[in-house]
């Protein structure tokens, strides 16, 4: 097996970000087909058959999510494209938006048509100024062509699409925090229920998907749900973008059929560990997914189930590779520093917990750790994830546990010797 370019098709072609070139490669054909030849029910059926699952991290089946929206319900209904891409290690959505913005737009319009939505927002993280400009330009082109706005392709269907620019808050990747942010508020996750399908943006029914999820839709319509599903495994349909980084020979974004063997991807496609070094560990799906050891990677397939069976998650498909020289205590320390900085701070176990975790990891890393610190983490962990308002609690607890369990001896060594870590003044980390 090799790369399978569905979303990334023609991505390196000159001008692919323009409507003209995109269309030259068959772009917007799926939209025309959906609108002119298919009913919303037929589109929904194809998406269900396609087995497309959300690419934002949780892997919820897209067809089921679309089914939650009551098409005939009165009042405005919204679509949100989640382009907050903040999970450390993840850089796929930025690439798609910058070089192939029209595939995102086409997917969005088809989804909106299927669910009868009125307007959509692409929530782009504030750092992504360049992708934001690329998306804006592409949206203007799509309006000019009549793919957006009133009476799209003469169908009587109206749909408006806008970009929105975040302002630096990882937590706004959570769909309910994102909606609060879009409403001009502090980006704090909402209590659930109600869920976005009933009470979303401005309290109206709303569907949220990741950039990549929408980008998969045109090919599903063009080639059929079954075609897409068959690319992957029986449970994980289609292709997935993997962004691999760290100590790897050929870092970058790759598109693979779900179910591709890890070994093939890592060694053949990405070129294995950089500089011929030995592999120490891999984070398979972004910093919130538990780290895996080389022996756990044996026989692993790149799909939701196979990675889950190894106690981790496919997550965002953000693979971070660590070679034998890596100081895993430092990696864990840096990850916890991130979470302590990004908690929204509304609920007790997370606000106090992630800071407490960081304090402990920081102490250990600075050579001031105590034996009982690791037990403390284990003990506190049990009471964070299940009691938080949003999934951020789990997002920092599960990787923290994996680090201290799988690299226990590294941590103990730090604690015992107490002399590694930062010499004072070496960096500004505080």
């Amino acid at each position, binding site marked *: 097996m090799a790369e399978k370019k569905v979303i990334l098709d023609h991505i390196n072609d000159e001008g692919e970000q323009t409507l003209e070139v995109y269309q030259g490669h068959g772009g917007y054909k799926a939209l025309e087909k959906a609108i002119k030849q298919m009913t919303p029910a037929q589109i929904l059926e194809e998406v269900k058959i396609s087995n497309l699952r959300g690419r934002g991290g949780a892997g919820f089946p897209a067809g089921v999510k679309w089914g939650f929206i009551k098409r005939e319900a009165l009042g405005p209904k919204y679509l949100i494209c989640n382009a907050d891409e903040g999970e450390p290690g993840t850089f796929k959505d930025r690439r798609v938006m910058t070089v192939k913005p029209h595939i995102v737009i086409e997917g969005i319009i088809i989804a909106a048509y299927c669910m009868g939505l009125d307007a959509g927002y692409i929530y782009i993280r504030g750092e992504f100024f360049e992708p934001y400009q690329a998306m804006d330009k592409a949206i203007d082109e799509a309006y000019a062509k009549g793919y957006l706005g009133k009476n799209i392709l003469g169908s009587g269907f109206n749909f408006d699409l806008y970009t929105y620019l975040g302002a630096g808050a990882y937590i706004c990747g959570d769909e309910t925090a994102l909606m609060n942010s879009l409403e001009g508020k502090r980006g704090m996750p909402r*209590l659930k229920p109600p869920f976005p399908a009933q009470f979303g943006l401005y309290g109206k029914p709303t569907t949220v998907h990741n950039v990549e999820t929408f980008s998969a839709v045109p090919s599903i319509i063009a080639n059929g749900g079954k075609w897409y599903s068959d690319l992957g495994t029986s449970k994980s349909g289609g292709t997935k973008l993997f962004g691999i980084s760290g100590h790897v020979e050929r870092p970058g974004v790759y598109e693979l059929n779900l179910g591709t063997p890890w070994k093939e991807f890592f060694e053949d496609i990405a070129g294995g560990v950089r500089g011929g070094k030995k592999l120490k560990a891999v984070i398979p799906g972004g910093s919130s997914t538990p780290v895996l050891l080389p022996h756990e990677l044996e026989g692993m397939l790149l799909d939701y189930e196979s990675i889950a069976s190894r106690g981790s998650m496919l997550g965002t498909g953000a693979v971070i590779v660590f070679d034998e020289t890596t100081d895993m205590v430092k990696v864990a320390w840096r990850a916890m520093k991130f979470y*302590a900085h990004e908690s929204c701070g509304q*609920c*007790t176990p997370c606000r106090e917990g992630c*800071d*407490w975790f960081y*304090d402990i990891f920081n*102490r250990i890393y600075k050579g001031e750790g105590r034996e009982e610190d690791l037990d403390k983490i284990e003990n506190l962990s049990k009471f964070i994830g*299940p*009691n938080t308002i949003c999934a951020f609690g789990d997002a920092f607890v599960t990787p923290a546990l994996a680090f201290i369990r799988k690299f226990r001896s590294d941590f103990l060594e730090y604690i015992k010797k107490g002399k590694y870590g930062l010499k004072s003044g070496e960096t500004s980390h505080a």
Partner: protein
Amino acid sequence: MPEIIIDDIPVQFTGKANIIELAKSVGVDIPHFCYHPALSVSGNCRMCMVEVGMPAKEKDGSLSKDENGKVKISFMPKLQPSCYQDPTDGMVIRTKTEKVIQTRKHIMEFLLANHPLDCPICDQAGECVLQDYSFQYGFSKSQFLDQKRTFKKTLFSDVITPELNRCIHCDRCSRFTKEIAHDYSFTRTWRGNKTELSALPGEKITHNYQGNMVDICPVGALTLTDFRFKSRVWFLKHSEGLCTSCGKGCNVVYSIDKQNKVLRIKPRFNAAVNSYWMCDYGRLRYKFFNENRKIAHTSSGTEIDLNTAIEKAATMIKSSTRIAAIASANETLESMQALKDFAENILKTENIDYRVHSSQIENNTDIKTGEVLLANDPYPNSQGAKKSGLSGSVTALDILKNPLQADLLLAVLDDKFVENPDLMEALGKFDKIILFSPFVTVHDHRAVVTFAIPSLIEQSGILVNINGMEQKFQKIITPAGEAVLVPDIINRLTLKISGKMAAGTGA
């Protein structure tokens, strides 16, 4: 009626109910910090987590039962916040399982992680929910060894002294500001563990209800500047009463020290009047109860006993022909009725009235613009005075403007009258005056008699608020010095002058 079962106790409910309240109604206490019955549910503290189950169903929709025929309950894998979880018919709540207790313990541990251990110097001690729960859940000291969070001290209020290092981020204070005070001057700022409750940089909270933020703060993060370090709450006596600073009649609790001084007023729940709240004006105005108290009757400034005072007053009344009287809307209904009878039967004057403030003259029963509770009428019993027939053909204000029309003026004074220089000056224009006053006044030295009377917390009675609601209250402290109730003085005067007891009093 839908029913849920809380720790094996069935509880029925109607409409939108709250599990914490339902539990309370059957004696089950679910600990909580952020939930407050008068505020929107925020669900952030996670202290109120409970087990929630529903009757399990078979595939065909029938209830699934165990071998004894009992309906099986399937519990949600995660605990749910009982402040937020809507009860539905058949739901089963467990609040005392090991899982719940362990979770509470650890939520406490998280909260104490950054909480300073300064209870010995904290004003909230004795009234602190966090402290109560930490005893209950067995925390004597935090196991948190790392640096505790500290905030720079900023002064965002004239009423509140902040101690934000003690804040547990329950957000009650900012929800109160927005939802109850309808003000946007205090909110959450920054993010995460650095989240700080704050006003705009360099600015202060503007509303008149800040004391309530102190009351609802479950810890000592917001302290009442006025009460700081004054006394440990457990040394004080707490008694129910009414606020007397305006016509709204907020229900309150007076805290009294061993010297019978009022040290604090806090609101007391009354759904029909003030909910859980009171205004800062009323809260902080209590000092008049303690100061300048008239503890002896006087004649031309000289202390005299009650009998002599009665004699002097009676003689003066008998020898006067054009008597006018000023009633006080700061008296009880009982006192007002006695005064009204006295004027009619003994003084034989229609020149009696209570209206010294424009709101009384206009019979204005509205809340001040921009306020939630504070009424335009600064008197606690104007409606009672009106009801007692104490409005004469001219207002008290007009009586005061015409000193030459009366050869004797009887005036019942109160804190607002004494504090009002215009009224006091007008009073000075009268040649002969008999005063009834809880306070020493500048006219005592020239008054025929000044009777010492109790303040409103030194007597029992009824006040009628701006909405026409009669509220009974009980004496909180014994009257200062020689002070005697107005009706008692009037009875004695009546007897003295007419040889008969006043109407309505027993033989």
